[in-house]
């Protein structure tokens, strides 16, 4: 029988939540790496027992972990992230040049074809790749050396490369997103990059339609239609039908279009999920009601999903990497909150229940669908 494994990164460790295909009874394992911040844990699509985890603290910096048995045991691997060539400068919050400095790994994206190959999105924004299971890391320098690099600026959470999407139909195509530089695409396996931000509108910029500088929070793709991308920007939910060459707003009737997380139904490429957050100064749901919004029309028309979610006095946030879908016949949807809850729906969002309620603040949620 199929089963699922939910990989949860929190401010104080990682947790593995497991259930059979019914997704009713859960086993909780953890905390792994107790006391450390776990920004992300993700499994290889080629070998689901191969997991990678990003572990860090302000005291001791970055550590990378690898598991070969689905998270039962872990081993530290390489944590040496050295920018290629002269590191150079980007802009600081005040607009002055600031040296590129490695701080942490935000996101891990294992290769679609090789369990030993994994990409890492880091702060200060850059993309690294390991081809030896995380032992050594090499920067894909073409991204940071894009001519706009010296003009990139950090968002409120730091200048992080937080989204990496690999195109299953074209292994040379990679999408990344950086706060607050915007979205970029490579069509040659990461050698060269182009910004893909046409159509984005960011009123906080001197030129709201500038080529770079947009605070993209997250991009999602359905693997069957890799040219269709959905984006949760700082404000605005956006859609592209041409692999990012152009974007149009699909916020439609959302009560607020600020937010962080966005994802696509596993079997319905036009069904999209977001969690609206009140504003950039108030990072919690509108009216204290935790609502996932679903569009079955690829955007613009949204419906609130509330059954099983708190509808009063709820002031948590759902961070950009904290939502995931499984690929069981009835698509499961999962998200974690800064209040330590991980909510699951086994019916595409119609009904929700909390798997756990009292974890440390959740930074990331991934799910593996296991045979």
């Amino acid at each position, binding site marked *: 029988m199929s089963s699922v494994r939910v990989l949860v990164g929190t401010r104080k460790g990682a947790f593995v939540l497991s259930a059979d295909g019914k997704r009713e009874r859960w086993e909780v394992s953890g905390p792994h790496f107790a006391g450390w911040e776990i920004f992300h844990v993700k499994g290889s699509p080629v070998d689901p027992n191969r997991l990678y985890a990003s572990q860090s603290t302000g005291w001791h*910096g970055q550590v990378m972990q690898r598991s070969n048995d689905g998270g039962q045991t872990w081993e530290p691997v390489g944590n040496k992230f*050295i920018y290629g060539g002269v590191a150079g400068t980007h802009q600081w919050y005040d607009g002055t040049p600031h040296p590129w400095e490695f701080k942490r790994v935000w996101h891990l994206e294992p290769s679609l074809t090789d369990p030993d190959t994994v990409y890492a999105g880091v702060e200060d924004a850059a993309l690294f790749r390991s081809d030896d299971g995380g032992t050594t890391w090499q920067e894909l320098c073409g991204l940071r050396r894009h001519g706009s690099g010296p003009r990139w600026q950090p968002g409120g959470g730091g200048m992080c490369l937080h989204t990496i999407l690999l195109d299953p139909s074209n292994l040379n195509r990679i999408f990344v997103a950086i706060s607050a530089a915007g979205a970029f695409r490579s069509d040659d396996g990461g050698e060269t990059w182009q910004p893909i931000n046409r159509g984005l509108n960011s009123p906080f910029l001197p030129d709201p339609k500038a080529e770079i500088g947009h605070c993209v929070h997250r991009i999602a793709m359905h693997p069957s239609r890799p040219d269709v991308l959905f984006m949760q920007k700082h404000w605005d939910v956006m859609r592209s039908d041409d692999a990012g060459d152009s974007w149009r707003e699909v916020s439609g009737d959302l009560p607020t279009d600020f937010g962080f997380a966005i994802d696509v139904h596993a079997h319905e490429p036009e069904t999209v999920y977001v969690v609206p957050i009140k504003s950039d100064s108030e990072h919690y749901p509108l009216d204290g009601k935790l609502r996932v919004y679903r569009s079955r029309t690829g955007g613009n028309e949204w419906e609130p999903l509330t059954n099983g979610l708190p509808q009063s006095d709820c002031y948590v946030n759902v961070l950009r990497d904290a939502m995931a879908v499984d690929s069981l016949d009835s698509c499961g949807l999962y998200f974690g909150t800064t209040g330590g809850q991980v909510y699951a729906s086994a019916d595409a969002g119609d009904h929700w229940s909390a798997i756990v309620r009292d974890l440390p603040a959740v930074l990331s949620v991934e799910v593996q669908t296991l045979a």
Partner: protein
Amino acid sequence: MVRVVLPAHLRTLARAEAEVRLEVEGQVTQRSVLDALEARYPMLSGTLRDHVTQKRRAFVRFFACEQDLSHESPDEPLPLPVASGAEPLLVVGAIAGGRIS
């Protein structure tokens, strides 16, 4: 034999006891002790000092013999009681906290 006391996070990472004992070749300095520590526990590389610059991480402190040695040169000889093993070198996570932002 030099004794080094590790903070809790690094004990669990290295799967080591609170106090580790190291053979240190040549003069006993911060650098030679950390070199020996990282040789024994490679997973600690980068957690105490920067991989490239070798500068101490901002929230890591080195105490011994009731002195704060954090700002000493990494090539300065450590106090004799540390070199002899009579006193441990304490690696301490600064109580100021671990978050820069």
